[in-house]
């Protein structure tokens, strides 16, 4: 997920805070960002110092500049950062954040 390719945001880009849904699931958390006009090549997702950052440059414009969606979330150490998966479809970026081994519920059978 952490692609080291150069991701540049145009200087005249207009920053927009995208709407998100955060959904709790049994195996982790799913975050869905609305990023219309952006595709897999124009989206950058990174995790640094426990902060998940999403940037996406859209083909849509506002006030003469391209729209750049930006949002960041502080992750708890219950998230397995190495297992995060991302996909985009119809202008919605979906991130699946699996629970780390620490957060997994281990049921112990009493003998």
């Amino acid at each position, binding site marked *: 997920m952490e692609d080291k390719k150069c991701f540049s945001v145009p200087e005249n880009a207009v920053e927009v805070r995208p709407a998100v*849904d955060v959904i709790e699931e049994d195996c982790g958390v799913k975050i869905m960002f609305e990023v219309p006009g952006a595709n897999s090549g124009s989206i950058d997702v990174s995790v640094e110092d426990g902060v998940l950052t999403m940037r996406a440059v859209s083909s849509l414009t506002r006030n003469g500049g391209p729209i750049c969606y930006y949002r960041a979330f502080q992750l708890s150490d219950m998230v397995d950062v190495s297992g995060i998966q991302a996909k985009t479809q119809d202008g919605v970026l979906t991130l699946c954040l699996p629970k780390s081994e620490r957060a997994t519920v281990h049921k112990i059978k009493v003998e």
Partner: protein
Amino acid sequence: MNMLARNRNPRGLNFELSTQPLEEMVKSMFSCFPGFRSDLVFGGQIDTKLDVSVKDKYVEVKFPCPGRCKEDFEIEVVGDFLTVRVVDCGKHKACCDDKRYVIRERVCESYEESVKLPVPVKGAETRAKYEHGVLEIAIPRMSEGKNGTHVVKVS
């Protein structure tokens, strides 16, 4: 087809209400503050989702609406009025109901907006595509001669 373009005033007034004198007064009172924009007070056009731009041969309308499928859209062109409706084809709402939301900001309600196009168009030749969450509509412009305007040369 709603022949009246939707009033873009966010307060939902359905009649023409002139706010020009009041707007001028507010502008004169607050224009000394940097960054003051009267459209934030009076609504202006900031709540519209249809981005209309006139090209040489066609009118381009972009409508950001992520997470839908093409069956969700109904597009009508009557005269110079364009209406876009977004209706849930069923599968979107059904998959939303049984989820455990921690944050829920995305909207999956039906939506409708009408806009009067700035130039005469050929509505029958309208093309639309839905890609990357953006509905793009291209409506060819009507040549000036077909709009009841006749150019007369002076000999």
